[in-house]
Every structure is written in C-alpha cells, then in structure tokens.
C-alpha cells in the first residue's frame, strides 16, 4: 500500500523549550489502521496536534508529508482541507449546538451529491444520533459524544481520520462499540491513525502499531508482532501479573529491551 502520511524526525516544543516530541518518525499507509500506543504524557496528543497544525509554528524541526505534499506548519484550516480530520481527546464538539447542527458543520464546504449517502452511512453506524438530532451535544452521554464526533468527522470524507483516545472515559462496553464502528469505518475505506493508552483494544483492530515513550517511537511492528512481544504484553496488555501498578512501571524501566 502507498504511504499516505510520512513524518520524518519531527521535534515539537512547548514554549520554545519543553520538548514534547524528540525526532519522531512514522508512516501511515493508505487503507489501514495505525495505532500509536504509549503511557500518559508520552506525547501522543502532541503528535496529533502537530499533524493537524494546531500547534503554532510546530514542528520546529523535521517534515510532515501528506500524499506527497508538505504540510508541516500549515494553518489548521489548510490541513483540514487536505482531508486530514482530527477528533481530539475532548471530542471537539460544539457543545451548545444540537447534534444536527454539529453534523451540518461536518459538511462545511461540501456541495457534492455524496452527502446523502454519507449521512445514510453515519446513521447506519450510529442510529442513536438520529433520535438525538435536536438535542444539545453537551447533553449526550460520553459514548454518544464520541460517536457524534466520529460521525461528524466522517461527513468530511477524511482521507486520514485521526482519533485521540476514542475509548477514554467510556465504559468498556461502550468503548467496544466505538471500536467496532472504527473497524467498519476502516472497512469502508478510510485510513485511520489512532492514539491510545488502551493498547489491548487498539491492537485488536489495528494493522500496525507504534509504541511511543517520552516523545520517541521506541518500538514498531504489525499488531500481531506487538501482541506477541513480551514487553508489550507485560506493560501494555496486562498479561502476567500486576504490571499496571507503579511498581510494574519501575520494573519495566529496568528490563525494557528497547
């Protein structure tokens, strides 16, 4: 598959001195699901924001190319118009607007005849949104908000859909529903880049994964390879023992192989 997004050695700083990304490189191939996994504070959100152009004048160094075009340090509107759609951790909804208005805004700038098909598709994916059409977005449950955010993103016909911790704060059952929907979205042909702390859920649907730590990629491989990697199993998949405890983290620092 061709490379859709290519990130080479980017460095992103906050306030010109706090390094959040240290020379990070990764690639996303068209048509697949890529997962970036890492603990809290690894820089996952920063990575997505850097790609989306939401951090002014960042990345300081390095290059981001999307479909062969350089996109680093472009304004967020320009990046969005190229077909990169970003669903942030807080879902990025217009909370005071209704569900329908949020969806209408997702169609901003579109006038093609495909809109009705896409609306059909998202209502099929998330039938609940149809019943909630005239409700204010902030009155939706956490899971419904995530679904609305994903539905709105899909109306933009993304070439690359980026999601920041889509299962964050959701009950396990709702998280699984969200992931099933992502799976369907991917099958319908959308490339997905998602970042997660919840490695188990992410690796179940991803084709390829990156493990990120302190602003660097420390390990990469197919979802299969990562699931079989012993360190990943212990530290991220919770196989064998109480590795989620702080003690576990220390243990892992000692014995990591990367």
């Amino acid at each position, binding site marked *: 598959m061709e490379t859709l997004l290519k990130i080479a050695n980017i460095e992103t700083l906050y306030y010109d001195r706090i390094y959040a990304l240290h020379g990070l490189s990764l690639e996303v191939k068209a048509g697949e699901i890529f997962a970036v996994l890492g603990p809290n504070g690894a820089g996952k959100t920063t990575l997505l924001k850097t790609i989306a152009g*939401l951090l002014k004048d960042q990345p300081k160094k390095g290059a981001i190319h999307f479909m062969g075009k350089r996109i680093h340090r472009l304004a*967020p509107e320009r990046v*969005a118009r190229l077909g990169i759609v970003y669903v942030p951790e807080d879902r*990025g*909804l217009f*909370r005071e*607007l209704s569900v329908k208005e949020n969806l209408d*805004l997702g169609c*901003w700038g579109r006038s093609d005849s495909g809109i009705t098909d896409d609306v059909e598709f998202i209502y099929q994916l998330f039938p609940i949104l149809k019943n909630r059409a005239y409700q204010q977005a902030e009155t939706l449950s956490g899971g419904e908000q995530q679904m609305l955010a994903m539905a709105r993103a899909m109306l933009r016909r993304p070439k690359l859909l980026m999601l920041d911790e889509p299962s964050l704060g959701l009950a396990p059952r709702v998280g699984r529903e969200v992931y099933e929907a992502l799976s369907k979205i991917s099958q319908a042909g959308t490339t997905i880049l998602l970042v997660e702390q919840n490695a188990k859920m992410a690796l179940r649907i991803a084709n390829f994964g990156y493990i990120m730590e302190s602003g660097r990629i420390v390990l990469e491989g197919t979802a299969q390879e990562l699931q079989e990697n012993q360190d990943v199993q212990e530290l991220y998949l919770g196989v064998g023992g109480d590795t989620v405890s702080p003690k576990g983290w220390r243990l892992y620092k000692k014995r990591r192989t990367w």
Partner: protein
Amino acid sequence: MANFWQYVISGLATGATYALVALGLALIYRSSRILHFAHGDITTAGTFVAFTLLGLKLHYMVAFFLALLFGAVLAMSFYFCVLIPAQRREASQLGQIILTLGLGLILQGLVAYFGGTETQSFPFPLSDFKTYQIGEVVISQLSLGTFGIGVLACLLFYLLVQKTRIGLAMRATSENLPAAQTMGIPTRQILALSWGLAALLGVLAGIFLAPALLLDPFFMLEPFLKGFAAAILGGLNSLPGAIVGGLILGVAESLAGGYVSIAFKNTFAFLIIILVLLVRPEGLLGKEFKERV
C-alpha cells in the same frame, strides 16, 4: 398610570439603542473574548461619515448605508490589520484590549480634527417634535422610528445568527475555535464578519441617537457606557442577554428619571446592575464559558 406607560415607552426607545450597542459588544466578546473599547468611537466615526455625506446632499438612505458600510469596513480592517498580527505575535487578551483602547483614542483624534469639536445638529428624516398619541401615551416620531429600527435590526440579526449557515459558523467559531478550524470553517473571515456586524449595529444606533443628542466627537460616550453596562447586565457572552439588558436599562433609567429625579437617571440604573450582578455574577442570561484545558 399613564405616566408609567409613558416612561416605559420612552425607556424602550432609548433601550433599543443601548441594545444595539450592547449586541455589538457581546458579539465581539463572545467570538474574540475581547472587551471592545473602540466600539463607541467606531460608532462616532461612522455617524460623522453619515453627517458629512448628508452635507454633500446625498439622500438619507444612501448616506446612512455608506456610513454603516464605513463602520463595518473600519472594524474589519482593524481586525485584519492590527488584531490578527498581534495574535500572531501571541498578544495577551489584555494586550488586545489595550489595542482597542488605542484605536478608540486615534479615532477620537481623527473625528475631532476632521469633524470639528463644536456641537452640531444632525439632520434626520424623523422628527423629535412630531408626536403620536396612543391612548394616553405620547411618542415622538423619532422614538417610534428608533424603537422600530432597533426591533427590526435585532430580528434580522437573530435570523442571521440562528437560521443561516454563516450564523451557524459564527456560533461554532465563537464556541470552539480549534474545532471550527479543523472543520475547515474560515474562522478569520467569520470573526472579521462579527467585527463588521458589531460596528454596523453600533453605527445604526449612533445614527438614531445623533438627532436627539446632537453631534460632537464625544456624543457616543454615554450610550457606549450604557451599552457596555447593558451587555454585562445581560451576560457578556449572551446575544439575547444584550438585547434584554439594553431594554431593561433603558426602561429603568427612564422610570428613575421620571419618578425620582432626573439627577438619579444614571444612578438608579447602575444600582440595578450592581444588584443583578450580586445575585447573578454571570449576568441575566449569561453562561460561564466552559474553557477547556
């Protein structure tokens, strides 16, 4: 009782102009989180343009239209040429507020230089002396026109914001700027439009205030402060609040002036504001901004 209704009616007419001023201030505060201290001066400048054009024997409609346009273009230029560059250099909110103050001072100087400082009477198609009798209440042609225009402008503005795509984009942009940007909404143009619309509403108020107040470079000072107070009364980030706040303020000061003493006109009105803000710090219809981290 006739007196009461008389005061209410004339209060509503003044209140309509406060509402227009307040609406502009609230619109800008909502979308840019900036207190716009040049609002009154942009209004004054626009009204002077109307005055000058009328002096050139242009038709009222043409002169007023061009004055509204002038105000809007002036405000949008300020947004594009001063505020955006300042924001690019990471100017703080306070810094940007100071910039609006600066613009206000510059405009005051220009208006005084080109328009003259002596008080002039503003020719107007509606008369302040021609009156209509409705029951026991008397209303001047000018007051009636002012109230009518105020209601009409608020209505059109409401339709624009609530019922059009542009309005939807305006609401989205002021609620969540980064999300609006990622939707591909041209947020700069949308914000510029808010600045332009605010100025337009202000100049409209100025044109209807000038014939009653007489024109000089500072004639908008008091209406501007009242508009500000009205916007805060209604809740600075609420558009309906600005309208309600303006009307309440107009009626309150008219009643205070009528029943107590004309000297207490302002005192009483501001007492009400203080009381309301003590009970509801976010204003009558305001909502705390939920700033996300």
